[in-house]
């Protein structure tokens, strides 16, 4: 998709975004060395009260932001990314995700204030009222809110443990087309989705990509959990390590917008991530950012960039491995506990990435609504999230989402045991 085809997908509001005339006006002046500038209204850094910012790293080493330039980077308006950050991110992306060589120059990378910020801006750029947006039938909540807010036509598509099912997507596309609707995008979390924990293997990615090509869909790839991948062998302590992929490696059409975040592998408090996408899209994204949250917090960017630079490629890989090992252990605890306590009472797949198990009770009434089990859960003092909250169609759901990221190892085991008690209660109960 070239510039023209991308522009045809933008909303009228975005097409009305003016060029930054002031910036254009000032640009030629910035090249001159002897310019006397009374143009820019920057606040004076001399009044910023901090002289240094220090972060000690858990694995050893520290970051110190001090001196005029580093402080300026962290504390001053940063116009779309602190100095050096965009090229740094581009290098990271180029290194860790192997694209076709010829795609590289057509891609750009830009920082954002976390993935939800990126999603909110992305949908404002490409989603018009009535546009059909395909998602998995159980999907990350804020995405549903955002798309509803844009008056999009949300179409949930059935998935399995490998993500959206191609035949289902094809059928959904055909139906929408017959209804005369405008098909715009598909939103996917290819690795370790929230809430389903689904993981799309390469063949599935290719199958979905073909359908996106056929119906000219933009692919919004939200990939926070690809950094948290696990071994499918429950007995192994090995982890896959940093292996990023998703759709980008074979996006010859340039229809993919990929969103990354530091939230799961560094910390969510930074509110920091980045978007990798074709240049026409990134250009609009930057314009829109300028009108709201900019590219997020400069201080966060400064700390993140400093850490990643200090670690280098190897340090980053080591850290990601460590994080994966930590979460994998917990995943395994839950997997074994499920085997022990709830076998025969529900269905689940062992997730290969992310933080969630997606559990479907097989006891109780037909067409069970897991929401209805909440009182029983509370009675046994265990909390899982009912699937209806994530339903794209606003429907009842039999599923529960179980998070293994946060509870202590002991609580994970006890919690699953209690889930077993809950399900046995349901099995034995006549009323429900």
């Amino acid at each position, binding site marked *: 998709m070239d510039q023209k085809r991308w522009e045809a997908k933008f909303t009228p509001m975005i097409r009305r975004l*003016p060029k930054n*005339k*002031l910036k254009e*006006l000032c640009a030629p002046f910035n090249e*001159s060395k002897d310019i*006397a500038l*009374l*143009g820019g*209204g*920057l*606040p*004076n850094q*001399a009044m*910023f*009260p*901090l*002289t240094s*910012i*220090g*972060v000690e790293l*858990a694995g050893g080493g520290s970051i110190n932001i*001090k001196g005029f330039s580093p402080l300026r980077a*962290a504390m*001053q*308006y940063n116009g779309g990314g602190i100095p050096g950050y965009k090229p740094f991110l581009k290098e990271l992306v180029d290194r860790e995700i192997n694209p076709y060589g010829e795609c590289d120059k057509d891609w750009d990378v830009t920082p954002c*204030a*976390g993935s*939800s910020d990126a999603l909110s801006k992305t949908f404002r750029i490409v989603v018009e009222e009535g546009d059909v947006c395909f998602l998995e039938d159980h999907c990350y*909540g*804020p995405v549903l*809110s955002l798309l*509803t*807010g844009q008056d999009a036509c949300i179409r949930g598509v059935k998935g399995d443990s490998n993500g959206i099912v191609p035949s289902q997507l094809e059928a959904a596309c055909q139906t929408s087309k017959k209804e005369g609707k405008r098909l715009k995008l598909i939103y996917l979390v290819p690795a370790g989705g929230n809430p389903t924990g689904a993981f799309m293997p390469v063949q599935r990615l290719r199958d979905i990509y073909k359908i996106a090509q056929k119906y000219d869909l933009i692919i919004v790839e939200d990939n926070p959990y690809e950094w948290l991948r696990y071994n499918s062998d429950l007995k192994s302590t090995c982890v896959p390590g940093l292996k990023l992929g998703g759709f980008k490696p074979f996006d010859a059409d340039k229809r993919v917008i990929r969103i990354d975040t530091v*939230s799961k592998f560094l*910390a*969510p*408090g*930074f*509110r920091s991530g980045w978007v990798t996408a074709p240049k026409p899209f990134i250009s609009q994204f930057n314009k829109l950012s300028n*009108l*709201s*949250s900019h590219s997020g*917090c400069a*201080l*966060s960017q400064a700390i993140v960039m400093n850490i990643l630079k200090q670690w280098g490629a190897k340090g980053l890989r080591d*850290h990601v491995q460590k994080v994966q090992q*930590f979460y994998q252990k917990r995943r395994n605890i839950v997997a074994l506990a499920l085997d022990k306590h709830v076998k025969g009472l529900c269905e689940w797949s062992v997730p290969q990435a992310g933080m*969630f198990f997606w559990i479907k009770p097989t006891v109780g009434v037909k067409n069970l609504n897991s929401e209805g089990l*909440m*009182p029983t859960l509370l009675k046994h*003092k265990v*909390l899982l999230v009912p699937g*209806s*909250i994530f339903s794209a169609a*606003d429907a009842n759901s039999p599923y529960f*989402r*179980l998070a293994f990221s*946060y*509870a202590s190892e002991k*609580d994970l085991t006890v919690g699953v045991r209690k889930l077993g008690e809950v399900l046995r209660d349901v099995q034995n109960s006549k009323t429900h």
Partner: protein
Amino acid sequence: RGSSVASMGLRSGPIFRALRGRNLRHSQGKTLRYMSQSKAVNYDDFIRPHAKRREPSPIRALTPLLKLPGMISLGGGLPNPEMFPFKSLEFTLEDGTCLALKSSEIQDAFQYSNTPGLPALLEFLTSLQSSEHDKKDNDEWSVCVTTGSQEALSKAVDMLVGPEDTVIVDDPTYAGTLALMRPIGCTLAGVRCDHEGMVPEELARTLEEKKHLGVHPKVLYTVPTGQNPSGSTASDARKRAIYQIASEWNLLILEDDPYRFLYYGTDPHPGEEGEKEWERPKSQSMFSMDTEGRVIRFDSISKILSSGIRLGFATGPKELIDRINLHTQASNLHPSGVSQALCISLFNHWKLEGWEKHIKKVALYYMKRRDTFEALARKYLSEHAEWTTPSAGMFVWFKLHGIEDTQDLIQNKAKDANVLLLPGQAFSPTNEKSCYVRAAFSTATADDMEKALSRFAKLLVAAKDTNQSPS
């Protein structure tokens, strides 16, 4: 049967309503009504349909359940803080004081946190607003922290302004807001300003004119202190008059006030000896005058603490701030925890006294720069331009004699003259040609200021000569 469960009324209580709230996703939302002594502002008439449809996150509704004794939560998908690679976070101040975060504070900084801001920061800002604007901390107004005040403004605009609306704005006004509003497709009705900002009679006239055309604006946007670009500052009397008119015409007011703390008055800098006794001149904000729940106020720390850490805060009627928070819940979730932690440390250390001390320092700093710059402006531009001494902020708005189009001047002639000021057209709501230029005195050294102004004067002389000579 599970007495604690029953006693929480969970079957029909708020949790289940929230869980079932997914069915209300497409509902209109409650009618929002704010009753005050004299008037009721019905926010239902202002909030756009898509903003009304925003519902609280049902997962957040589960939070009270976590507090039940013995509860094991496998609910929330929080990353585990054991994996955050940070051991300590500390900041050093100019006086050498080192502020270090405790480990619990580090966790707060790095974990997902409260939508409107970390409680400690909200507490400080609420008491700041209470004291600064003489408002009792009560249920009628609240504060939310955002990723810069621009972000708060963009959410307020998203909530209130549609393509069919006409928005009242200052003329000239902040270019960033023009960029924000224009793509919506709304009409911008500029109201003439003078050195004290928006002129009340002009506002009244504009509203009458619009009424005759069947147009009923609902929102007024103004920058009352040290306005970018004009440097104008509205007197308390002006602000009262504007508020009065807004009340008569049932407008909501967006009070964008990033330069409030850079208000230093028209007197010259008191000199080094006078700095100690100097007091910030008082100024009543529109928020402080707001008895009817019409004002959303936007504050920023960008000019006084740091522009890069992206922290601003919006203050206003609870119903409207809540709506902004619902938007945040579905977009960037919350402002940067690291930035907030920095501020909390700083504010805990300073307390309101230290904050006031720093504000005073910043105001005096820009006041001195204003003096330096104005003296040079008088030296070089007295014959070529007129302007009003700014009493706040960092800008001077020069009206150039004999120049009709400053955009043409800057674009075509200024580069060769090696000087840059910003043409007024960029700040015109209706994109009209302007005879004004904006100069900023925030960062240039005294030498650079002199260089710039002398070059600019030469440029103006040359431009006039060109105009006068037959060509």
